[in-house]
């Protein structure tokens, strides 16, 4: 009864095809946007921006990218960390080497470079499928780890591959305080989420999903697998690359290749699976879960230890955190293998029929 779409008649194709066809959804999205742009800046403090909100936003963006590849096109990729690294380092190069390069231009160059690299490493997907492909994408991860550590050109010949960026400047607006960084990332995320949402419900998005559901059948009905798979790799790695550039420029400021190690790839994959494969909304849920969980655990474990009168060493705390994290992931996969997005849609259905059982 609460979430009731009865009576909302569509009288034109335009109205029928719009991005949020249900009135309540449109209001909800507007409310979330208002909260994100106006409410949170008034409420949150500096720690919240730095430790939770900015990482959450950037990783949501990356998760959207990975979700397009893994969730919509069905190509499991364990090399997303590498595409983030490509985005970050190439954006750095564009920013440092080219005079008067605007910040947004540099970030987009990072995304474009990641696109090229992603398409190159996506070529095996035309021949290799499933878990074989998943392992093969690790080649991208290890190659990029190696390249940014060993090839001096990428890092302006800095030792150990660490680089730093300062003076983030967008059309005269200097992005320096956590609040400004938050708003900057938020604008990127909103724009890209909108693009992604529109892409996945367009013709190309339906091609991706057809390939995911069964690629032979998709080929039979006239979908070109090469075009569909490579475009998924391209779009996905563009978004992931921009997210990587943001992660380096805005969140870290100074970084080295280990910021984009294989653990980052796994983290992104966790976000997609826990958030829900094939759901843009789910990417946000997954990113929130994975960003917040370790922070909660690192606060909770010593507190619990103190409660029972144990003082736990920092090493032990990190090990116990790893255990709890792993156990929670497994538990979560058992309870809801389709991710948080599925819980969300179940909840919507419940609201729709409430107070009746069916």
């Amino acid at each position: 009864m609460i979430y009731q779409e009865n009576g909302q008649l569509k009288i034109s194709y335009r109205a029928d095809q719009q991005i949020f066809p249900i009135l309540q959804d449109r209001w909800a999205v507007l409310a979330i946007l208002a909260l994100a742009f106006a409410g949170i800046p008034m409420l949150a403090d500096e720690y919240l921006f730095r430790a939770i909100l900015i990482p959450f936003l950037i990783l949501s963006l990356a998760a959207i990218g990975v979700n397009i590849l893994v969730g919509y096109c069905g190509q499991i990729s364990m090399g997303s960390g590498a595409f983030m690294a490509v985005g970050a380092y190439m954006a750095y190069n564009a920013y440092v080497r080219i005079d008067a390069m605007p910040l947004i231009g540099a970030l987009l160059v990072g995304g474009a470079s990641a696109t090229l690299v992603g398409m190159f490493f996506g070529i095996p997907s035309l021949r290799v499928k499933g878990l074989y492909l998943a392992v093969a994408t690790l080649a991208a991860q290890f190659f990029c780890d190696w390249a940014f550590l060993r090839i001096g050109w990428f890092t302006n010949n800095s030792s150990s591959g660490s680089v730093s960026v300062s003076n983030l400047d967008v059309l005269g607006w200097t992005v320096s305080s956590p609040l400004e960084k938050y708003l900057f990332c938020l604008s990127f995320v909103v724009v890209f989420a909108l693009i992604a949402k529109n892409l996945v419900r367009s013709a190309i998005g339906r091609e991706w999903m057809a390939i995911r559901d069964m690629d032979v059948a998709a080929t039979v009905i006239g979908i070109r697998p090469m075009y569909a798979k490579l475009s998924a790799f391209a779009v996905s790695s563009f978004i992931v690359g921009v997210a990587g550039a943001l992660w380096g420029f805005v969140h870290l400021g100074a970084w080295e290749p280990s910021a984009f190690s294989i653990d980052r790839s796994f983290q992104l994959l966790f976000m997609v699976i826990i958030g829900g494969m094939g759901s843009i909304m789910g990417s946000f849920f997954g990113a929130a879960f994975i960003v917040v969980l370790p922070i909660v655990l690192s606060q909770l474990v010593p507190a619990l230890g103190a409660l029972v009168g144990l003082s736990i060493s920092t090493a032990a705390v990190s090990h116990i955190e790893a255990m709890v994290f792993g156990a929670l992931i497994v538990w979560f996969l058992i309870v809801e293998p389709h991710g948080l997005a599925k819980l969300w849609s179940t909840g919507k259905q419940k609201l729709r029929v409430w107070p009746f059982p069916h």
Partner: protein
Amino acid sequence: MAEAPGKRTHWDFNWRSANGFKGGTMAFFLETLLGGLMAGMLYSLVALGFVLIFKASGVFNFAQGAMVLFAALAMARFAEWAPAWFGFESKFLANLIAFALAAALMFVLAWLIERLVLRHLVNQEAATLLMATLGITYFIDGLGQTIFGSDIYRIDVGMPKDPAFVLESVFEGGVLVNLEDVYAACLAALLVALLSLFFQKTVTGRALRAVADDHQAAQSIGIPLNGIWVVVWCVAGIVALVAGIIWGSKLGVQFSLTTVALRALPVIILGGLTSVPGAIIGGLIIGVGEKLSEVYLGPYIGGGIEIWFAYALALVFLLFRPQGLFGEKIIDRV
């Protein structure tokens, strides 16, 4: 490799050329080849654990590396503690008891994983199962280091550490062979032989093969699936234990041991996810490829290429045979 002398590993023979080695290129090539074969044998040992589990349950077990570390930690620490617990001195006895205890621990772990995780995830998508084993990886890593500590420990099962020179009559200076590697490779070969006997000749082994062929058909003739999975994870646990002992006594038992799993991944996709002989042959190809590339290609494009070169090599093979060298042919039906 010249810029990182501290990183020299046991099977890295490159240093001899830098130290005025005069044995000639043929002998040097042979040395590299042998070193690669030995290293490859060790990779296949880890790869074997992956293949066993994937064959029987369709689970791509990312936790194999964590299991290797866990088993090695258990082995190292029990060998340290056993003399104090039972009041004896003998090192052999300590190792024996440690092995038995570590094996028992792996059994318990296998049973728990089947009971608490796999049973609840039957028929889920491959990606979900993969992520579940990643979760298990975190858990086992944390558990092992919480119980056994996170320093570097030693496993001493009496493997010889000295290098030996063979074929001295053919080449000046002979060909250097690491005796430790030879022992390890023999052990690995023995384990593989035992496993194939187990699979071919015992009733349990036959049941395992039946499950691997077709879950439903196996179940319909009364083979208990859950029991079989426990057995497979146990066998994989024992394989992890042997791999952990060998790798641990070579490199020391420490967290970085888990990365051998990442080294073994190209081996299994090269050999085929479902093939035991594939794991062996794949291991040998990857081992040799890594060493040759590091020695002959490394100087031109920079050191440290072996980790990604292994993946690139596996990919080249996959482009010709997408299911790996010995994997079952993938047939797509609409």
